[in-house]
């Protein structure tokens, strides 16, 4: 199981919707709001699903971009 922190960049006015959608995603925890357009998110998934998580987030209406800040793969190597 890999651990990543992502910054989800949110369109202005759509934060609540994006938080709601993120909360439904398995292995995804919204930790908090970094600034008015950024959500700090932790993803805990097997690495083979990490990319799917990013794709699912990008598909949320109002999620403009996803940045990765930190990725730990020590369980998998």
């Amino acid at each position, binding site marked *: 199981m890999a651990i990543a922190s992502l910054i989800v960049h949110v369109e202005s006015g759509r934060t609540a919707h994006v938080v709601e959608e993120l909360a439904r995603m398995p292995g995804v925890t919204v930790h908090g709001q970094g600034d008015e357009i950024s959500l700090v998110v932790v993803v805990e998934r097997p*690495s083979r699903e990490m990319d799917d998580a990013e794709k699912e987030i990008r598909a949320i209406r109002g999620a403009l971009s*996803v*940045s*990765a800040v930190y990725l730990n793969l*020590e*369980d998998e190597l």
Partner: protein
Amino acid sequence: MDIKRREFIKYSAIAAAYLALGKVNAFAAQAERGSDGIERWVKGVCRFCGTGCGVMVGVRGGKVVMVKGDPNNHNNGMLCLKGALLPSVVHAPDRLTEPLVRKGGKLVPASWDEALDLTARKFKEAIAKHGPGSVGYYGSGQNLTEESYLANKIFKAGLKSNNVDGNPRLCMASAVGGYVTTFGKDEPMGSYDDMDAATCFFIVGSNTSECHPVLFRRIASRKQKDKLVKVVVVDPRQTNTARIADLHLAVRPGTDLALLNAMAHVILKEEMDDARFHGKYASFKLMEEGKPVDKTFEDYRKFLEDYTPEKAAAITGIPAGDIVKAAQLFASSTATMSLWCMGLNQRVHGVWANNLVHNLHLLTGKIGKPGSTSFSLTGQPNACGGVRDTGSLAHLLPAGRLVAKKDHRNQMEQLWGLEPDSLNPNPGLFTTAMFGALGDKIKALLVLCTNPAQSLPNVRKYTENLKSPNKFLAVIEAFGDAETLKYADVVFPAAFWCEREGVYGCSERRYALVEKAIDAPGQARPSVNILVDLALRMGVDPRLVPFKNSADVWDEWRNVSASSTYNFKGITRERLRKTSGILWPCPSEDHPGTKIRYVRGEDPMVPADHPDKYFFYGNPDGKAIVWFRPHKPAAEEPDREFPLVLTTGRVIDHWHTGTMTGKVPEIRQSFPHAFVEINVEDARRLNINNGDAVIVETRRGSMTLPARVGEVCRPGLIFTPFFDARKLVNELTVDAVDEISKQPEFKICAARIVKA
């Protein structure tokens, strides 16, 4: 992993994210807790696109187990997921670990001596029988700077062959041609910091959101935080980038020369130009019979009369009002930053398109001020710092010098300790010419860190040459599944990314060090050492290659640069270890680097006592050139037989030919196969539904791909990415090249589709 460690790592991950946003809270104190168990952290640069994001690499047990964004580099700790997943690439199971030699039609393991001796013998035989023009080198924008500089020197100075080219010919050559023809020198004059000051972004032919995601976040954030910031996107596809546009111009593919001239027309007609600026710092020129002819501003105004918004609307498919609006947004902002990429470069008139963007900046004076700059985005991590700066293309010599110019050759002869007039005065073969001559004029070729058997346009044509029994192909490569290995006679296993040390130079002229974190697998070696060994065995004068490692090569290159306006003598290895990169020019060790070129007080290459504020020192008169470049069609326009335009590109999950991203299981799973994007109108007309198999056909071949029906492509346009080795889309593309840059027109060819 136990629960306690897992919690520590999560805390660290969260803290790193807050720190990247500049927010110091209770979590920040936890930032280092997840580092317990990490033996060491080393600093590097991402291995993917040309953004050049800084990464910190965490090592344990000889493996890279953790990656985080470097908070001290321009990316402020941010990465894209592709970059963060680099450990999966480094530790991929199909890494090459021993030299291979083809015997009985198969690549079989061999000793280093056997592989090196065989390669050296083949090159020496070719030169002895057919002259130095019969050997060549094909490099990459992914090589370290030291590797490109060294290979270029070995071939041009050691073997006297100018057949040195590389894959930046396929992606950046038109940008080089644009900068050189307009400003006299290559490389952008601004930096990423301009993104924080621009109030208008003019993004043309670049899907920044998917191809340079970290920069996209910076642009999108800027727009969200300042309501006065405007974004204009020119792209025939409704890309993710276009989602943030105030104005999206979905041009008919290949018509942006008309659009850009029409914008210049509007700017002059509505007197939005900066007459004081262009009157003093720009000259106006037209090419006539192959020679530049001086013209006046009034001549230019008359030239633009053909480009009224109404006339351009008929060519581009963009309403005249939107063209006017784009020109107004560009010219009336307080600071405009243009960004472009392959959409302008991969074209038969790519250099011209680049010139026309520069024209808009010169006419409005929106250049050389914070936020005002004309900035080409790069596709590879070291196309700029490696191939372009070191002059590792067939017509170039280091630091912007030209093979064809005697004084430039003489300068390099002196710097390299060669006899006067001993360098070969004839430019070598550029990429498609080189592979077109393989097995014929080119008898022996060395390929370093790139995958031409997949990335060349109209690739089937060149595959025949790769198969030729009259060629010898040696490849230095890290991965066993690269398409090009199918045709190699010798394969040298290379150390990859942080398995050796060296310098990358990104789009903003920033040189940064990738430090060594781990050992390479098996017998794989750093390419610098492979190149030196090969050179010595080929009989190259040992005084030309007195290098034990990449640091030695960097020191020579740094000193060589001091005689040019690229001067980065002050960027020592020691400084690179201490910092997360420095922007050249940087002539001395106490110089901080340069964020804005050509401006007195900013650029150390402009004398402090220069009488004018701007000095475009690349051109003899110190002025930048506004070129008259008429609209011309693409090499292959759609017609009755092939009524659609096929364009190619990248998707966020994969990078280029997929040799690296294809082995990250999570990425391969996400986008396992190529696809073709079709507009709903076209799909309806052709009775194609989403997911249907469709046959895409051009004059060069056909292939079957699953359809993605939607609104992304404008009607008449289809798109397919080029990462999938099982679906070589470049069997379909044209290999027509730009007359100036010799860059192929990947972006446009005529096609038809039918339900399979």
